[in-house]
Structure formats: C-alpha cells, structure tokens
C-alpha cells in the first residue's frame, strides 16, 4: 500500500482522508465485524454530552428519497462513562479517533471539554449544529456571533485541537466558519444534518415527536458540496467535509472543492463497507492519475 492518501490535518497525520461520521458509527465496535478499523483514516465518536442522555422518544428514523431523517437526540452515555468504557478500547485502534462533543449551554460544553482533557485524544469535533435537541447546540451554530463565542471559550480550555462542526441551517455558512476561525478553531467540519420535517399522512400526524428532524444522505450532497466550497474559500484552517458522500467519486469531489478530509455518515447504513471502498477507490484514482499524493488535486476547483 502506497501512502498516496496520507493526509495532514494541521499536524495530525491521517493514513487516509476517510472517516466515518459522528453518530453513524457508534464507538466503532459494531463495524469491526465488517473490516479492520485500522484501515480507516480516522473515526468519529457518537456525540457526547456532559451528562448521559437518553435521546428523543418516538420514531427516530424515517427514510426519504435518497435521504434519511433522524431524530436520535444525542443519546449517549455521557463523557464520564465514555472515558471509562469506550476510550480504553478506542485508544488502541491505530487510527485517529475524533471526539464529538455537544452541549446544552456554555457550562456543559466547557465541563465536558475539561473532562476530555484527561485523555489523549487527537482532535475534538465541537458539535454546535445538532438540530435535534437543545443540547445539540444548534442555537450556537446558526449565528456567526454565537458560534465564535462558544468556540473561543472551548479553545481556551481544551488541551486538544478543536474542530467546529457547522450547521447548514443558519446564516451564511462561510461567515460562521470565519467567525470560528477567528475564535481560534483549528479546523472546521461540515455539514451536520439539514432541518427537515416528515408527516405520516396515514396517521395525520408528524412522524417525529420533536416535530422537525435532521436530513442526511445522498440527497443533500449538492448542498454540502456547495457549502464545503464556500467554507474552503473563506478560511485557512483545514476542513473536514461531509454530507451525502456515497462513493469515492463523491469523496474526490469534496477534496477537489478543498476539503482536507471527508466523513461518511448515512452511507454506512446503505453499505457497511462504504468507507473502505472509498479508500480503495481513491487509492486507485491516485495511481491511475499518477498522483504522488491526493493533495495534488485538493482545492483545484
């Protein structure tokens, strides 16, 4: 295996730029049945909050044309239990584990981040964009001013580099990205899910207890690609892009638009081997095109 896919996200070295996305990959264990997680560039944990959360009630998943709506509501064991039960396993996987953190207010973000200072993680993904719960922080993520504020405070106390995960549901996304960059974020990831709604006409009722829910999957790819391009044009910090990436060609397009790494969410459900197939596809592409490293075509658009 050549290292044509080796990718540096600031000074963090990824074997390749392909990373399963938060919330679609649990804490990794489940996918070990399908492939060796060491092959992944990285993996991103389910969104953690300070306290354990049981998530939303009622239906949590709803399929849409080429998309998936979810209203999980950040169900997670909380930071303490994560550090105790999941981290010992995760830390031994030879890949970059990214820790996704949500919060319901400033204090809960900051306390969670402080606790995570105790472990040797490589990168925090600060989730200010989950549309499904207050604790997801989307209230922070849809305005540049508030996004910048929370980022600044988190960066100040975090021992780990912080990448801020943006919402596609707010103000001009490039402005939000710039605000986060100015506030000291070491990277940007995007997009989280788009806010959508589902109605079950047979039941004459909304599908989700929470009224609205988050849309992801191939359906959103054109929007995610546009936003990725806008953000990559606007900031100098590296960008981790996602939203509907379903094969290596999609992954390549996001990289051409300027993304340093890409994340794979919903497609894990469609095809558990999706990330591995993307790695293989990108590798073959580099070989065919004679690229010493994928970075040669990064941001060419």
């Amino acid at each position, binding site marked *: 295996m050549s290292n044509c896919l080796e990718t540096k996200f600031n000074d963090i070295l990824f074997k390749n730029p392909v990373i399963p996305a938060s919330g*679609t990959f649990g804490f990794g264990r*489940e996918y070990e049945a399908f492939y060796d997680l060491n092959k992944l560039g990285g993996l991103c944990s389910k969104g953690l909050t300070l306290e354990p959360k049981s998530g939303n009630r009622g239906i*949590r998943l709803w*399929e849409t044309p*080429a998309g998936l709506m979810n209203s*999980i509501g950040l169900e997670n064991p909380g930071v303490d239990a994560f550090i105790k039960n999941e981290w010992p396993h995760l830390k031994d996987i030879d890949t970059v584990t990214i820790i996704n953190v949500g919060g319901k207010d400033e204090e809960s973000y900051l306390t969670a981040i402080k606790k995570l200072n105790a472990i040797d993680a490589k990168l925090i993904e600060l989730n200010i964009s989950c549309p499904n719960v207050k604790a997801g922080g989307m209230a922070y993520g849809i305005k540049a001013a508030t996004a910048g504020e929370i980022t600044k405070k988190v960066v100040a106390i975090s021992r780990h580099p912080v990448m801020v995960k943006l919402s596609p549901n707010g103000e001009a996304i490039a402005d939000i990205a710039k605000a986060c960059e100015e506030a000291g974020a070491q990277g940007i990831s995007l997009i989280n899910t788009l806010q959508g709604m589902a109605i079950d006409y047979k039941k004459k009722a909304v599908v989700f207890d929470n009224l609205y829910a988050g849309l992801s999957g191939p359906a959103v790819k054109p929007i995610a690609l546009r936003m990725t391009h806008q953000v990559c044009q606007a900031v100098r910090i590296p960008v981790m892009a996602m939203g509907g990436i379903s094969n290596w060609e999609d992954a390549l397009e996001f990289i051409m638009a300027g993304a340093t790494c890409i994340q794979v969410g*919903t497609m894990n459900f469609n095809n558990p081997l999706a990330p591995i197939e993307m790695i293989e596809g990108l590798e073959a592409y580099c070989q065919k095109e004679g690229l010493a490293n994928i970075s040669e075509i990064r941001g060419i658009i």
Partner: protein
Amino acid sequence: MAIIQSNECISPDIYKMSVTFSGTVLPGQFFMLRAWDKDPLLSRPISVHDYVPGKVTFLYQVVGKGTKILAKLKTGDNVEIQGPYGNGFPEITGDLCVVGGGIGVAPLYYLVKHYKEKKPNGNCRVYLGFRENAYCVEAYEAIADEVILDIGGIITNQLRVQPDEVVMTCGPEIMMASVAKTVPLENVVYVSMEAHMACGIGACLGCTCETKSGNKKVCKDGPVFLREEVFYV
C-alpha cells in the same frame, strides 16, 4: 450476496422467499435485506421464517417500496442479506406457547420447529391471529401440538395459558401489549419488538425501545425482550 431459490406469493401480499445462506441462525433473529442500490436508501429487517443448513427462508408482507421490490425478485436473482442479527428467542426448558398476529407469525415457525427439534417431548401450542386471510396455518399444524386459529377477531380473547408454559409472541404492538397484560405474571413471556432501523447492528441508535432498564436497541439487545422489560407490567 445470496441467490434466491424461490420467491412466491402464498396469500394476498404475503411472500415466501428462500435464499442460499451458509451459516447458522437462531429463531427470532433477522437479516437486513436489500435488492436495490440507493432507492430506497436503507436495507429492510426481515425475520428468519425457516432455516435449514444452506438455506434461509423469509416470510414477508408487501407494505411499501422495499418489500415491493423484494416481491418482484425471481429464482436465481441476487439479494443482499446481512446477518443474522439480534438476540433471538432463548432456549427454554418448559412447554412453549406462541402467539402470532398477522405477519408477526413469520419468525414463529422456525421457533416452533427449533423447539420441537431440541425438545421432541416438549409441548408446543400455537395461537395464530389474522385480520382477513390466514396463511402458513398448515405448516404450523405439521409441527406444533396444537394450533388455535382466529380470523377477524382478537386472538388474545381466546388465549388460555398453561401454568408451565413459556409464552413467546410476535405481532402488532397492541396485540403483544394485550398478551403481556393477560398472561399471568407467573408465566415467562417474551415479546419480539419492531422499530425502524438504519444500521441493524447497534451503531445508529435509531431503533430504540424504552425498557425498564433504560433504552435498548431492538436490533442488538432485541428484538426479543422479556415482557416486563418492555411493557412495565
């Protein structure tokens, strides 16, 4: 990739499909099926209706896009099956009483068959309830000690459980809730739950079932739960 050995309509909108499979399966487990690319996006959870080495059989009802596609498949076509997933029904020592409603009868056939194979002298009674058309009844009669059939009524009205029977049920939630309520607390009752699923393996947290001991994943911790976990009797 599994190859379809047969796929036939056995009752209006009810299909039986057998596919090649090398592995073992427990009663109550399920597979994630797909025979399409991205439309629909997700695979469909379908229980094991029957299993013999080399072959697994599904019984499914056509309700929407995915099952419509499944119904069109022909012998020799490919279908992707991921699994078996889930815990399945536990092995028991006493007598067995199963209660199935509608397409919920699907997993119970292999359950009964497996039970009788492991415990030829055990007694197994089967309640089957259907709204309009009954199916699979003869198949159950061939392997169970007694089959009680109800069409158009409420199967739980007829339900009389013996003191030493373990009850296992699958069907509409309202039916299982009624079983949970009417069967004496002395009897052990297992219910097989449904939920919309994305991953089928415990990674997405989409298939939650609220239990006495917190959220459980239907796909991984279930689909089979003890009555008291789910229905808070």
